[in-house]
């Protein structure tokens, strides 16, 4: 049990620490590579919530797809874009550092207050699940249940998301296409 907890704290410290480093760092490429580390640690944390399939999907989709896409877009773009990306002068909302810190810390306080509320008196459905032993246990076949539920109970969201994904792919390909010069 203590080994369990130790691993959890290790993964959590890796995720939070590398996220903080990304925010503090100036070089873009280094922070992109550190983003790998955060995503892997997050995948490890999903395993602790007994969501092993989600963890594998995270590794495949994020680390395999999203990050490679980011690095590609980054490395294939020309050098002036690289410089501009690194030395931008204005942010999206142009907040000074201390104001952003203030907003973020305030938000953290609100979130931690909510979490402590839930820890003191958890919602009814959670206590019921704990009492009836209907929560997911480590010896359950999660992937089996996940697949059956995906194809029966959640088949409508599944179809909607597949159509959405196709639309996004077409849109991204259309946007990224090189435009022919019309003369």
């Amino acid at each position, binding site marked *: *049990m203590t080994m*369990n*907890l130790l691993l*959890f704290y290790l993964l*959590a410290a890796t*995720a*939070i620490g590398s*996220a903080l480093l*990304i*925010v503090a760092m100036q070089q*873009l490429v280094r922070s*992109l590579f550190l983003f790998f580390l955060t995503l892997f640690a*997050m995948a490890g*944390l*999903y395993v*602790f*919530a*007994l*969501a092993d399939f*989600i963890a594998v999907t*995270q590794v495949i989709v*994020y680390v395999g*797809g*999203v990050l490679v896409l*980011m690095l590609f877009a980054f490395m294939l*773009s020309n050098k002036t*874009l690289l410089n501009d*990306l690194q030395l*931008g*002068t*204005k*942010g*999206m*909302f*142009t*907040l000074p*550092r201390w*104001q*952003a810190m203030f*907003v*973020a810390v305030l938000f*953290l306080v609100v*979130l931690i207050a909510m*979490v402590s509320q839930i*820890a003191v008196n958890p919602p009814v459905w*959670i206590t019921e*699940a*704990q009492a009836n032993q209907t*929560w*997911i246990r480590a010896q359950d076949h*999660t992937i089996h249940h*996940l697949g059956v539920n995906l194809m029966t109970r*959640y088949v409508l*969201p599944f179809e909607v*998301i597949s159509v959405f994904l196709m639309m*996004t*792919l077409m849109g*991204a390909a259309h*946007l*990224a296409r090189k435009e022919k010069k019309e003369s």
Partner: protein
Amino acid sequence: MITLTHLLVVSALLFTIGLYAVLVKKNAILILIGVEFMINAAILNLVAFGRYDGAAYGGQIFALFAIVLAAAAVAVALAIILNVYKHYNSIDPDDINDLKD
């Protein structure tokens, strides 16, 4: 034993870091990474609560959907960033001030 509170605190911290990155960062790709942090924190929340839903697996399935949505969002956002750069020669959000003519 890892309780719900452990996971929720980690996700709250990650969400706050993402919020800070979105507010303070000066280039579009790092803002995108901040958004990804927030999405990851939300997925961790979904998964942590979904552990108590042994019948329907709602949390885990919607975590899968959220991962797919995030991947789609990144693809479109990167295409838009590169296109905007091609058109305006800058990705400063303040320079981008007209619609398609």
